[in-house]
């Protein structure tokens, strides 16, 4: 076959291999971004500890959970966002593939709004005082009559046969709960909690599950036995018990909840990943890459993990959904950090359920009369979980070049 006539064209015979040096370990953009981010966070932490508040909102103390979430965010930025930007071509193709389906588009739009609300919402709503005089305000378009009734009705009041009905007002467009907190504020606070759960899961739980599964599958032998025995052991440990025991020592907190439930829930994914890796390990392209002398790390990153996304992605999105629901459930039962207005606790506080919770001031009125307090967070919770699951399945299909669409 004839050689190309262009001057710049190189053929494989042109390389003088005695002069090619091995690629040195470089500072990858991923490492650079993560490194800088962590250094900045460290500086911020020292500054904060020196007595200068760094809370975004004035009275917002930086609790340990906030630092953990910030570290997680930096890791996600470095190892998820940066690679997505570097491979922007593939990202765009995959994204276009995902958004082609109306349900997935809706889910993506919802999650986009959800994330922006969770991130920027607190800046808008700020810190809300307790206003018992404004408790039980109905949302716009709804009325409340009889008990309970707002002490100061800000909206229009209409006369009924007995007493008056209070209409919703623009002051509290989504109504208020029994402490006079606007529902909008509670929804934003709840969204923040859910976002924390997602960031924690994505930054710490998912990598842990994937790394353990890949290492067990690729290494095999004793390493595999030890890791999988540990996973078996962990799977037999109920997270709720560990949480309650921890609760007795350190008081309930979101961090404790995330650590116990998050770090005890990845065993299933690790096993799933391992069994997938075992199948991929003997594939031809893996053998060829190994015969070329690539490192295990390279093999895992380029060949193994991209080919197990069919299994991994739905499992990860399922884990998101699971941990979000677990958090809401624990908050619903009242074993949560009271200062955090989780969607679960907001629902719980309104429905007057006979759950033991001495720490909560419960309304003594039937839930249907103040339906908005439970319905709005319930809708938000359902939409979030549903969107995650739709998007997870869709993303799996879109990432497969053989095309499930």
């Amino acid at each position, binding site marked *: *076959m004839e050689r190309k006539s262009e001057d710049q064209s190189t*053929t494989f015979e042109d390389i003088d291999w005695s002069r*090619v040096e091995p690629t040195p370990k470089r500072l990858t953009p991923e490492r650079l971004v993560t490194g800088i981010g962590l250094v900045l966070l460290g500086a911020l932490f020292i500054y904060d500890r020196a007595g200068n508040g760094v809370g975004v909102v004035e009275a917002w103390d930086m609790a340990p959970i906030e630092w953990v979430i910030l570290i997680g965010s930096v890791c996600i930025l470095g190892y998820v966002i940066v690679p997505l930007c570097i491979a922007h071509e593939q990202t765009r193709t995959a994204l276009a593939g995902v958004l082609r389906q109306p349900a997935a588009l809706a889910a993506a739009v919802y999650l986009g709004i959800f994330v922006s609300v969770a991130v920027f919402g607190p800046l808008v709503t700020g810190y809300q005082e307790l206003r018992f005089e404004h408790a039980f305000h109905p949302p716009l378009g709804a009325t409340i009559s009889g008990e309970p009734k707002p002490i100061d009705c800000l909206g229009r009041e209409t006369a009924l046969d007995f007493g008056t009905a209070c209409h919703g007002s623009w002051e509290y467009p989504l109504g208020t709960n029994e402490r006079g907190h606007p529902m909008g504020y509670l929804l934003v606070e709840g969204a923040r909690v859910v976002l924390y759960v997602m960031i924690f899961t994505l930054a710490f739980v998912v990598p842990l599950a994937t790394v353990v599964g890949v290492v067990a599958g690729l290494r095999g032998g004793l390493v595999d036995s030890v890791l999988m025995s540990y996973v078996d052991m962990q799977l037999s440990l109920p997270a709720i018990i560990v949480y309650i025991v921890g609760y007795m020592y350190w008081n309930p907190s979101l961090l404790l909840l995330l650590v116990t439930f998050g770090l005890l829930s990845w065993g299933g994914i690790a096993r799933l990943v391992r069994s997938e890796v075992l199948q991929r390990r003997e594939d031809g392209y893996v*053998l*060829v890459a190994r015969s070329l*002398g690539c490192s295990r790390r*390279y093999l895992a990153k380029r060949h193994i993990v991209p080919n197990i996304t069919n299994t991994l992605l739905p499992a990860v999105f399922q884990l998101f959904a699971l941990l979000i629901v677990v958090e809401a459930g624990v908050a619903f039962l009242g074993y949560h950090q009271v200062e955090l207005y989780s969607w679960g606790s907001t629902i719980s506080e309104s429905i007057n359920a006979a759950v033991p919770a001495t720490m909560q001031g419960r309304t003594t009125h039937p839930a249907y009369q103040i339906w908005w307090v439970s319905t709005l967070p319930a809708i938000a919770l359902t939409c979030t979980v549903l969107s995650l699951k739709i998007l997870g399945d869709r993303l799996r299909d879109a990432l497969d070049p*053989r095309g499930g669409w």
Partner: protein
Amino acid sequence: MTGEQSRESGIGAEDKEDVLLSVRNLQTHFPVTEGILRREVGRVRAVDGVSFALQRGEILGIVGESGSGKTTVAHSILQLQEPTAGEIWFDGNNITALSERELRSFRRRAQLIVQDPNDAFNPRMKVRDAIAEPLLLHGIRDASKRRAIVEDIVERVGLSADDGDRYPHEFSGGEKQRLAIARSLVVNPDLIIADEPTSALDDRVQSDILALLDRIRREHDIAVVFISHNIELVRRFCDRVAVMYLGEIVEKGRTKQVIEDPAHPYTQALVGSVPTLEPGVQSFPSLLTDTVPDPSDPPSGCRFHTRCPSVIAPPELSIEAETWTALAGYRFTLEARELPPEVEEAIEAERTEAIAAIREAFDIPKTTGDDSIDAAMARSMEALASGDTEAAASIASDALPTICETTVPDERQVGARSVRCHLYDDSDGAE
């Protein structure tokens, strides 16, 4: 023919310049472990003492049934599987003794083509990136250079340069195998190990791929280890051939000689299994049994003796060769628990009828010419007819001993080839 022989064994000092790859007594065993402490309860001797040498630019065929350890040889050479024992010399370096870092140059100079083109490429990677991967891994950092090399090579294997932008599933099996050849070629190797590169392709595509591989080999003086179960392909394509059976090389030599005039009974059986249209071509007796023995528990002595149509009779025995083969066939069929259906049926029937059916099925005469064997056979068939296959087999094996099961054959030079078979115990290569 002394030069030939020293090349064969791969240790001839005067030929050292020419030898690219020399495998000496390679053994690769897979331990079978049990329990959490991973106690070794046995081992599969996938490769058990294989030696051969390969010159620059030469094609060596390794042929054998599936399970004979061909692929394990390939993986051991490429250090994908750590050999249990033995040495692998590549261009003057013992690569079994090198660290992964020192293996760098070898990892570039020896390339692998895998069997199934459908999993030869990462389905999530564009073909362009897959073919550029060897360059990237070996330190070509300039992306435009990589791109130019890949485009050039994709054209040279007969596809168009912009095919690189497609994903593997968009190509046919033959095209994928062309791309696999391109990928193996891109780092300018000296050795390509092709593990059944055409077994998944149909005949016409198979010929195209072999022609391409042959052309590339000639153009760039690349040595090829061609692994195949198809002796016909090996005959057409290879300079020399090594025949493997259960982890051992039973015969090796020039392809022309080995395949046109096979010396080892196993090679004869392999050659005989190729259908031919030519009349008058030498035909060989078929195998005694079809069952390939379990490599974790290989037969004693010569590993092929349980299936060998030429299994050797004890010297003191004076019965006809044909009769002996029938008796041996009876014995090893029983030992393999591979009874023909008519015998299975006969066992259900009445005793004398059953014995007659068994005699007929195995072609065993009433009198063999040796009274003690006649008596033993009668007892054995009696046991078989009553359904006790195990007893029947043990009586038969006691009555019909053979040197093949007791003594491991040494490697013998027969003409310019080497054979491991007791049939050639007298010859010492002086031919």
